[in-house]
């Protein structure tokens, strides 16, 4: 029997866009030669420095704070407690308040004044002339605490008699999310086979190379100017305006070049408001740069899945259930909680499973809060679903790739509805087939079997990832639309202003490519400006792989407006019908041939309009807002269906591993992946995103782990105790692409910032379990670190 069934092919895609080109990112040379400036490179005269006193306890009441010694320390300008801060500014707004959805909520201040709920929570801020003075003075603040019982894991927190993580609550549950279709009980009762499994994803985070930082000043005109390493400058501006009770027009937020973000730089951190307040109180610019040990506090992804599956003799999955328990740490006000929703919403992944029931339970504990993290819960779901698909294959004695082929959504069924999403397009069978071919899957399996005969624990993994992208959830400011201005100046230079920001990925190069292609000018003549709320249109920044979909879409629309003006005016000037004008590569052509450059044309427009009544005096610019509205549905239809993600990238992964049976160490021998993120504007940017996401997923599967002491203090505080993947850890990662354009986005793009992460974690998990199968061992707990795998081999983990 062939291991792989032939795919059922859908309509052939029409990949590509006029802008598509493998163009190196515009600031790449600057960055790689160390000349790219980041927040900490900003030089401001008279700048002062902030430091924070953080709670050493996981849960305690603050009885007293003595700042007298700190206040008298050399260089200290101000010591700020939570009590004083609360007299000046309001609480930090929730990105999405669970209280609005019937859950438990809490008020979060920039400095806590009464009850600390995790080790590392900011309690007092100090500002001094020099950073070392601020940090030395912070050590002098004396705080008296009354210790309270702390709860450090979700299972314990859910027990009826568990200590409360926050004393005002009735229990530790924040909220529940449920999705489902069909009669699960009936399907499981009648199915030929059922099975259960569990998967525990560990807490780990995103570790951008550049940590957070803020530089606040009030220049004297009553305005607040905040340079911030933020992915969402406009929403941050609105949050600060609310906290300070000032108009948004009195707040300018500037996001400089970011050295990575991955969700870590979503706003609503305590330090944002605190730094701004300190600056106002001392009348000087105040800077704060996050230390690595502070950055490591931010959590994500700690989810456990208890999953059930019903299937038939052929490995066709009839139904699936999952209870996801999410240890969210202390309830924060940033975006983290949303991941508990999205993890459930992603079910049942890329598979045609019509009966399912998923419940996600967000549980607060006394660990530091989550923020959003690349993958945003989808990666956890991918790992869980893919584990169960392998379980079905194992139970039925079928090849895992074959079972996937039997369950993937057929290409002819897109757009494909589930109760919580409408998947826009896909050609999953082809993507999987390509990945199997790319990897030489059958040969890999033969090689594995040969190795097993000599006693080696070699495993081959297969996984398929669905990555919903372009999120739009009403009720917050990170929305699914964005705005772009295209402005052409008298000498033909093109400026693009957009509400989309770059987390350091180079999306500005892709946006410039789109606008240049639409206008018919060289990419190098287009400058993209992002991140300054004084200049860029209101927008939702960076997240959910929205850059090219939205800034590119809005930019294309705006560029088309401007192009129409240029063509129209050129026709009038040249005395030919506009439809006879062609603009390409910065040159204007009529049927007579080359007429003038675009810069000559724009100069004529600017200098002769009004005087030449044929030429409009309207500015050569357009601002357009774009959203893939055709695939967003907030109001449930007659079947109760909604969709908050307009596009769905997807990818297939294959890997080969070897487990050292004596030590448990996993060695990744080979890796292959094929992705479909729709139309690709810049293959270099997509490739770099996919590689980065895969490596992040491999790290999550194998080594990355935020660990805590028994008293709740983070112990993985540096890159010696939190292990990232380095180049020597990795084999060559072989990539290929497939393209099914999204029918709902202007450019056919789907988003390429997150895809690959979940697939990588899932395929590693499957491969390691495959490697361990001759021993009759299954491992459920990530990371698949040597101690964990060794313990599983030796039966210490159940």
């Amino acid at each position, binding site marked *: 029997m062939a291991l792989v069934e032939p795919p059922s092919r859908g309509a052939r895609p029409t990949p590509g866009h006029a802008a598509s080109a493998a163009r190196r990112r515009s600031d790449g040379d600057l960055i790689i030669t160390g000349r790219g400036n980041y927040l900490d490179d900003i030089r401001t005269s008279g700048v002062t420095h902030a430091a924070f006193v953080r709670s050493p306890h996981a849960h305690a009441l603050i009885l007293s704070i003595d700042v007298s010694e700190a206040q008298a320390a050399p260089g200290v300008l101000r010591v700020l407690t939570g009590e004083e801060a609360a007299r000046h500014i309001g609480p930090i707004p929730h990105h999405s308040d669970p209280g609005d959805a019937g859950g438990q909520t809490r008020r979060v201040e920039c400095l806590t004044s009464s009850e600390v709920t995790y080790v590392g929570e900011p309690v007092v801020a100090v500002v001094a002339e020099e950073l070392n003075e601020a*940090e*030395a003075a912070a050590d002098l603040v004396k705080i008296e605490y009354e210790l309270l019982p702390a709860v450090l894991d979700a299972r314990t927190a859910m027990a009826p008699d568990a200590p409360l993580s926050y004393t005002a609550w009735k229990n530790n549950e924040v909220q529940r999310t449920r999705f489902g279709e069909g009669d699960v009980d009936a399907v499981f009762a009648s199915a030929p086979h059922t099975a259960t499994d569990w998967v525990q994803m560990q807490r780990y985070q995103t570790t951008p190379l550049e940590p957070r930082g803020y530089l606040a000043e009030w220049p004297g005109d009553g305005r607040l100017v905040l340079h911030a390493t933020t992915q969402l400058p406009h929403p941050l501006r609105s949050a600060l305006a609310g906290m300070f009770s000032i108009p948004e027009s009195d707040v300018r937020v500037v996001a400089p070049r970011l050295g990575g973000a991955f969700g870590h730089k979503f706003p609503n951190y305590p330090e944002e408001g605190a730094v701004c307040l300190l600056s106002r109180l001392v009348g000087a610019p105040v800077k704060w740069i996050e*230390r690595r040990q502070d950055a490591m506090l931010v959590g994500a992804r700690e989810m456990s899945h208890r999953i059930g599956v019903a299937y038939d003799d052929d490995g066709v999955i009839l139904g699936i259930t999952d209870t996801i328990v999410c240890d969210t740490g202390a309830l924060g006000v940033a975006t983290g909680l949303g991941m508990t929703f999205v993890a459930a919403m992603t079910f049942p992944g890329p598979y045609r499973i019509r009966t399912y029931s998923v419940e996600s339970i967000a549980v607060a504990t006394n660990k530091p809060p989550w923020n959003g993290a690349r993958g945003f819960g989808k990666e956890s779901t991918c790992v869980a679903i893919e584990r169960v698909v392998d379980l079905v294959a194992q139970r039925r004695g079928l090849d895992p790739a074959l079972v996937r082929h039997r369950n993937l959504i057929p290409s002819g069924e897109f757009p494909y509805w589930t109760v919580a999403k409408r998947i826009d397009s896909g050609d999953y069978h082809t993507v999987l087939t390509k990945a199997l071919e790319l990897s030489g899957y059958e040969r890999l399996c033969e090689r594995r079997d040969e190795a097993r005969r000599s006693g080696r624990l070699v495993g081959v993994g297969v996984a398929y990832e669905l990555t919903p992208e372009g999120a739009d959830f009403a009720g917050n400011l990170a929305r699914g639309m964005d705005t772009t201005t295209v402005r052409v100046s008298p000498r033909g230079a093109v400026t693009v202003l957009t509400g989309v920001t770059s987390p350091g990925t180079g999306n500005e190069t892709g946006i410039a490519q789109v606008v240049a292609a639409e206008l018919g000018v060289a990419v190098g003549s287009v400058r993209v400006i992002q991140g300054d709320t004084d200049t860029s249109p209101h927008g939702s920044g960076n997240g959910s792989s929205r850059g090219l979909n939205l800034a590119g879409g809005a930019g294309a629309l705006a560029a088309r407006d401007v192009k129409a003006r240029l063509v129209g005016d050129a026709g009038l000037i040249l005395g030919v019908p506009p439809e006879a004008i062609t603009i390409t590569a910065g040159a204007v052509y009529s049927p007579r041939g080359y007429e003038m450059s675009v810069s000559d044309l724009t100069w004529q427009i600017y200098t002769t309009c009004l005087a030449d009544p044929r030429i409009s005096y309207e500015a050569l610019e357009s601002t357009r807002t774009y959203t893939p509205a055709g695939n967003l549905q907030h109001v449930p239809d007659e079947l109760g269906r909604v969709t908050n993600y307009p596009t769905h990238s997807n990818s297939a992964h294959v890997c080969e591993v070897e487990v050292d049976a004596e030590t448990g160490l996993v060695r990744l021998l080979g890796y292959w992946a094929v992705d479909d993120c729709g139309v690709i504007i810049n293959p270099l940017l997509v490739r770099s995103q996919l590689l980065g996401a895969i490596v992040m997923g491999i790290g999550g599967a*194998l080594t990355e782990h935020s660990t805590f002491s028994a008293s709740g203090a983070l112990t*993985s505080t540096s890159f*010696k105790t939190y292990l990232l993947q380095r180049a020597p850890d990795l084999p060559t990662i072989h990539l290929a692409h497939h393209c099914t354009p999204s029918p709902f986005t202007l450019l056919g793009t789907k988003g390429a910032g997150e895809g690959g992460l979940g697939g990588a974690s899932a395929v590693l998990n499957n491969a390691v379990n495959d490697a361990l199968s001759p021993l009759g061992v299954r491992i459920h707990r990530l990371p698949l670190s040597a101690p964990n795998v060794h313990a599983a081999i030796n039966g210490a983990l159940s």
Partner: protein
Amino acid sequence: MIRDRLRYHAPSDVKTACELLSTLPSPLVIGGGTIVTPRMNRGEQRGTDAVHLSRAGMDGIELKNGKLRLGATSTYTQVLGSDVARNAVPILRTVSNGITGGRQLRNQATVGGAASYANPASDMPAVLAVLQAEFVVANTDGYRSIPASDYFQGPFRTALRPRDLLVGMDLPTHDLAHGYVKFKLSESSWPIVTGAARIWRDTSGRVRAHLALGAVAPTPVVVDLTEFVNQSAAQLVPPAKEELADLIDTRLGDTWTDELAPGDYRRAIAATIGIRTLNKLNKEAS
């Protein structure tokens, strides 16, 4: 950020350095600075004065009285570049090549610094233990020597007294063979277990073999394997893994646990790493 306003001292010789250490209120000794500086940045180590040893003439690598005197401030790069070290104590080259952190760290970090910090989960303790290094220590009273068996006293704890200065290490030369294995979780990981082995002919002509395991316990665990040496062939016949595990267990008290791995795990794989180290030794010998 370093909180203290440190006074900086760069003594030009050992005597001056010792005088500084004896008189300054709270000196911080800096060899390469790769351990102390980050710790000061994190506020984990405080002091009044930084005593930087880079100009104190303590980075020599030379043969002295039949032993290799390895200056305490010798960097790993200096070790790698030293013909004397390569010929006399080749295990130094093996271990220096694998120091995590790449060229930047090897250019800066010093062997004496690692020996002074005594992190159980680091490369040098097991190597220095298996070599039976003599630690040359100076203070204002003069010089003294501490054998490796007494030098490592616990996690981050040595026989150095507060005003002592580690000047160098005297190492035996011309072993018959050595083996070194570092087991870690990933490229950036601290060692989880290290194995260092040597086989040598002592002054009586007897061929001896030792294995030291690092990071399993707070201090290196040294196992004498001379009974497994075929004296006529001057060759080690490694014990079975289970037998080695028993030998290790008899010398093992508390295990070492840190953020990366529990002690039980280290104990469980110690014999495996030990056998791999001995196999390396034999491979080199052959």
